[in-house]
């Protein structure tokens, strides 16, 4: 088990994943800190989802270590992983019980309040908008009050207003001290919300630094242009 330095909520060392002869992730190492928003960016197939699913304990790594056990890491998958025939509160109660949260009802009430879903608590998931479904998805990841939470492309299926509300919620979580690691292929979101950016391409970690540092590495211009230039220079494409 890795040892966290001051302020660290997650430490990853030499994480790798192979599917037969194909290497999906190669020796990725980084640390996430309390209250920090850490973005994992990269083109499609770069290994973002593979990295997050291994951090979440959904997949076992082929090599490397993760400092936190599964129960200490909140996970919000790309698509809402909720029971559509159950109501918001029924989903929250079920997963709180499965996660053996000490005070189920208190945890459920806290999540409903944090995600702004108190008024929709009794509604079935299949009658909620995509944005509200994603809020429930986030709430389920936060039920056990983990020190770090992983969000896999959380805003992909949302409209701009819903995205705005989601990022407000995520920013509030970070402000409370929760470490946030999120993957996205919308690089503007990384620039706007992340304190640090990890750039993955073909399973390799190419960059670990602030958005400003990435712009400089990419040769200036706006963030998206710099990101594309950086990949062209450093990536294998």
């Amino acid at each position, binding site marked *: 088990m890795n040892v966290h330095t001051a302020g660290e909520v997650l430490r990853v060392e030499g994480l790798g994943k192979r599917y037969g002869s194909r290497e999906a992730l190669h020796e990725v190492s980084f640390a996430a800190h309390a209250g920090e928003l850490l973005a994992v960016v990269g083109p499609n197939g770069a290994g973002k989802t593979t990295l997050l*699913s291994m951090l*979440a*304990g*959904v997949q076992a790594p082929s090599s490397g270590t993760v400092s936190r*056990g*599964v*129960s200490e890491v909140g*996970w919000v*998958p790309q*698509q*809402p*992983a*909720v*029971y*559509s*025939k*159950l109501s918001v509160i*029924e989903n929250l109660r*079920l*997963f709180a*019980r*499965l*996660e053996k949260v000490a005070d189920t009802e208190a945890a459920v009430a806290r999540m409903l309040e944090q995600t702004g879903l108190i008024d929709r608590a009794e509604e079935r998931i299949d009658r909620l908008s995509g944005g509200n479904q994603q809020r429930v998805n986030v709430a*389920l990841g936060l039920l056990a009050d983990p020190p770090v939470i992983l969000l896999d492309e959380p805003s992909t299926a949302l409209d701009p207003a819903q995205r705005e509300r989601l990022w407000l919620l995520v920013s509030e979580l970070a402000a409370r001290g929760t470490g946030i690691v999120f993957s996205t292929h919308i690089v503007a979101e990384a620039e706007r919300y992340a304190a640090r950016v990890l750039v993955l391409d073909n399973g390799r970690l190419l960059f670990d630094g602030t958005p400003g540092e990435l712009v400089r590495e990419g040769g200036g211009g706006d963030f998206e242009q710099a990101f594309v230039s950086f990949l062209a220079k450093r990536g294998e494409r």
Partner: protein
Amino acid sequence: MRWLLGKDLLILRRSRLLVALLIFYPVAIALLIGFAISASPARPRVAIVDETPPGETITLGGTRVGLDEYTKQLFSQVDVVHVPTRAVAESKVASGEVLAAIVIPSDIVAKISSGVSQAQIEVIYNGDAVEQSFVRSTIDATLAQANLALSEQIKSVAVHDLNLLLSGGHIGPLGSQELIGLRQLPGTLSGIASRQPPGKDRETLTRIAGFASLAANNLGIAADVLTTVSQPIAVHSTLLQGKRTPLDTYAVVVAVTVSLMFLCVLLAAGGVALEREEHTIARLVRGLVSREGLLAEKAMLAAVCAFVVALAMLLGVSAFVSLDVSRIGLWVLALAFGALGFGALGVAIGALAREVRAASLLAFLLSLPLVFLALVPSGSVATGLYDVIGAVSFVFPYKAALQALDAAVNGASPSLGISIVHLLGLTLLFGALARLGLRKAE
């Protein structure tokens, strides 16, 4: 585990249409298959053109045999539609109003009475290959029975005449003429010969008495020969294994097993596939529930639901069909282990499919042929093909569950114990396949 079970029951309660379909559709299919097995085929509608004059009789050795006896036998096997002419019969066959027509020609009596030429009747039929096969086999069987009845009558007349020839009796109007029997001739002739002086006449009479004795002895076995010729092969049935299963109770066993299978396989497959479809499986198996636990929960839920429905069905049917309810303990065992086997098959299907609709389709595509394969009787297909069918049926739980329930309900073989061991093996096999299918959660 209990929270997951509670969640699944809640989802089932909220999917009333699905539950209703899951229960009523298999039960409807099961009842249809059951009726198809137990119901005897309807009598075919057959047009009869009887061209013989009314009341005509066949005269054999002075004894009259009514043609009505023959036609009565013929008509008992079919739903008769009397028509006046061959042309009308042909048009009814062509229009499909009747499946076939039988024309009894006017010269049939003369030909049978002649004793030297074979009488003929004509069969006219139409329809597709299946109908033709059905009509031909039905008519052939009917004609064979009618011919047998007629030959029995002819044999009776012949045996009566033979007995008269052998033992003597009275013939002619009101028995006015006495006939000496062949068996009495040797004694009578020997008596006359003994009273003759030695010489040529006495020797001749003695030789005739010897011939009469030989003829009487040989004709004495003629009656047995006639019986053998009229019905050369008699059938004596011996059941090698187990107990004879009445067709209606076997149909009940088939129907209940079909319901058990469909309900269990569909519920288990749908349950696992739903977790994939809702993307919750990854959330669950990351430490909340083990993959084995998840599969066991789905299989058990499906097995318990299907077991309850199948047992209720069996008890309900026992009100109409004579089933030995004192064997209920064995029914429970057979249904429970059958449900486990089907539950394991269901979760294996669900683990392979990515969504509920695909899982349901796969479950149907796999289950339905298994029912029909298990019902293929030996000898009805080529040996090699039957072996393949047997092997396929062996590696899926339907046949084993059918045999288990047949043993429990009817005491048929193989024994319940053997079928239970078979089902347990298949439960482990499909459980392992399901676990392999669930190796990658997302």
